[in-house]
């Protein structure tokens, strides 16, 4: 009976940034998201007793672990848990811990002064933390045990190009670590995160209505990646992999790439502004109009 147990580690990144339109317009949405995500998390734990869970809250200025709690803060409370309504203790524990942690995070929010207009969610940072956590767990894994890990982002914000490099680093690290990145977007189209999903083989889903959040989560994101191949799931989205030019930082369809330093430009320039290589202008172009004139005569 030496059956190999494959653990599935799910790290959920929940975007709790107050600047999300979703939360600004109806604060109760946060409760709904939270409850849905908790139910989803418990479903994941229920699938297999070996499954593991972590959850992070991604805020405008910080990212914090909601579950498992930092040992110092909650060391005493775990012992106080009793069975409630016949609910499995672990589920109660998950539920309570997550609620409490997020509550404390929100309460702390007023105390620290809001800084400027930096109100975008620090998703890239949260993803990096999740990767670190996964890495640590994989290190601790006893031999003979297998673990597939994935990160699920549940967010209502847009991805911002200001974190571009961090995103790219996170995506490629995840790919290298064999971590699947799933994204459940509740509001915006996120072209950067789509790239991340595509690279890591995860799913990207922009849900049409918040009401059914739990349903979408359970249907699309609950099966662990090895099983997904066998299911009929939404097909991968067409990802926009266009590059941005160095000169205006705009996404371009066709560009000019310096053959020496690989800089990208949207217009041809005889001297590369990065490495100062001098290029000859393409030759045959000016000849053609002349020929046409002759023909017309």
């Amino acid at each position, binding site marked *: 009976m030496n059956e190999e147990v494959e653990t599935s580690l799910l790290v959920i990144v929940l975007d709790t940034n107050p600047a999300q339109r979703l939360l600004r317009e109806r*604060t*109760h949405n946060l*409760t709904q998201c939270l409850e849905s995500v908790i139910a989803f998390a418990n479903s994941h734990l229920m699938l297999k007793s070996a499954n593991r869970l972590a959850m992070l809250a991604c805020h405008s200025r910080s990212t914090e672990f909601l579950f498992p709690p930092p040992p110092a803060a909650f060391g005493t409370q775990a012992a106080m848990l009793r069975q409630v309504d016949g609910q499995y203790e672990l589920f109660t524990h998950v539920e309570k811990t997550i609620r409490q942690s997020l509550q404390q995070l929100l309460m702390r929010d007023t105390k620290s002064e*809001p800084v400027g207009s930096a109100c975008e969610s620090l998703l890239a940072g949260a993803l990096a933390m999740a990767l670190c956590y996964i890495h640590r767990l994989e290190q601790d894994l006893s031999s003979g045990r297998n673990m597939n890990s994935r990160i699920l982002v549940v967010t209502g914000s847009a991805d911002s190009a200001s974190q571009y490099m961090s*995103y790219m680093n996170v995506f490629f690290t995840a790919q290298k670590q064999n971590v699947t990145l799933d994204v459940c977007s509740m509001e915006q189209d996120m072209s950067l995160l789509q790239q991340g999903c595509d690279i890591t083989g995860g799913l990207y889903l922009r849900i049409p*209505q918040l009401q059914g*959040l739990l349903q979408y989560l359970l249907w*699309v994101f609950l099966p662990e990646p090895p099983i997904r191949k066998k299911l*009929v799931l939404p097909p991968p989205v067409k990802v926009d992999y266009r590059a941005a030019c160095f000169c205006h930082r705009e996404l371009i369809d066709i560009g000019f790439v310096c053959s020496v330093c690989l*800089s990208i430009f949207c217009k041809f320039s005889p001297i590369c502004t990065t490495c100062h290589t001098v290029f000859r202008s393409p030759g045959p172009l000016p000849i053609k109009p002349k020929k046409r004139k002759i023909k017309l005569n």
Partner: protein
Amino acid sequence: MTTSSEDVLLQVGQVRYKKGDGTLYVMNERLAWMMDHRDTVSVSHRYTDIKTQKISPEGKPKIQLQVCLHDGSSSTFHFVNRLGQGAQVKDRDDVKELLQQLLQKFKCEINKELEEKNRLLSENPSLLQLYRDLVMTHVISSEEFWSQHALQYMQKHQSQKQDIGVSGAFLADIKPQTDGCNGLKYNLTADIIECIFKTYPAVRKKHLEYVPHKLTESEFWTKFFQSHYFHRDRINAGNKDLFTECAKLDDQELKKDISAGIEDPLVDITSFEDKTLDEGYGTGGDRSCGIQSGNIVHQNMIKRFNQHSIMVLKACQQNTLCHSGSERLEQSGVPEKQASQSNESSPGCSDHLHTAKKLRIQEKLVYDDLESDSKMQHQGTELSLSRVERYLHGPMPGSCEDVLSEDDMHAVTTRLQREAESWCSVSRPQPTALVNPAAAVSALGELTPGGALMKGFEEESLAQLVPADLERELKNLYMSLCELLRHFWTSFPPTTPTLEAKAVRMHEALHRFHSARLKPFEDRVLREFSPLSQHLTSHLNQMLNSAYRKFATWQQRKMQALR
């Protein structure tokens, strides 16, 4: 039909062809027959078209000569010299002899070409497919195919061409099979025959002489193997053998080689001794070198081995010589010396030899990659990059939503806190249902195939509907059409008359392809795979139509210009 410039090599009168009397002409490039009292040639066979000639066996009353063509047809000429059978036979043999020589000459050419084409087709499945689709359906002619469409394959082949060397053991590798009744059966492939020819040039000569008019191919090789095994211990060699002469030639060659010696200054072959390491492993008392094993059979055997090795090595040398020297020049660092070594084996001038020797030794002593190359160190220009940070930027951050004022932010935070207060209180309302049934059902609807979130899934399943053979056929269609289109578009703009002609020709070919290949395919798809209908070929049609359009506008312009 015949061009006047051709020389008539032989003219034989009183030759009957299909019950008509006439004259047979053996010309430079063709065999022709003209009916008496006519001035047009009624039979004309190019030598390249002729596969073989046959003659009527001796003793038959009719003296005939038949030429078989590559396309399977044949023509028979009946020699009816009024001077009697002797003259008829003489006429026939004159023609036969001459024809034999000419055919031999042309055979080499045509065979090479045909074999080449055959080989190209068999080695390149895609080319073969193209050939099937375009030539066999008469979309384009065979000549056009080889001159236009297969060009890259032909060229590619030319650069690849490389002769295979001769294996030293090739004779041993021809494993004879016993046929059960005291005989042996040899399976000879073209490669093996080529090897034999390469190693034994004298045999090649004999082969040209004897096959096919004196012996058949198989008779020749039977004799060869019989004699070859005779040769093994040549003491008993019969004198009447076909290959005795070969052996003599070989001996002469061998003597020449021995006297020429080996030029390589690093090898001193004369110091080699003919001895083995016996029981003492070389430490025991040396036998005097002068004494050779007295057994003449052994000596003969060793001689044969040596000769065989020499011939095998020579076969390789011939190859490299045949090839233009330029290839080798590029490869070897010391080109002059190599060329001199292989070309002038006879020591011409000692001065030249001296330098060759020096070069050879230098080649062994000097290593290119150990030389400190002063150029290399100064060659690279350093890459100086400015504004490196641009590599680290992504696209410009979009006007990131609506920027919240600090007050707004504060307000939201406060409301969220109030919302959160209820989370942990004991009296918090139990969540009734996280998802109401209507939302759940609509979500499920979106996620089942055909739903709003499953777009693209349908396309995939369409791909699954196409069976493999249909897919293959479609692929072939694409390949052929793209090839045609490629040639069509290269003729634009049609600035020269040749290009214009090509444009017209390719346009016609496209139309032929459309009706001969695409239409039947579409019909079949419509019949057998109705759900796919036009989807599969829509892009093909699109490509065709844009070509037609281009052609039409060009024609229209041309008409206007003419007016």
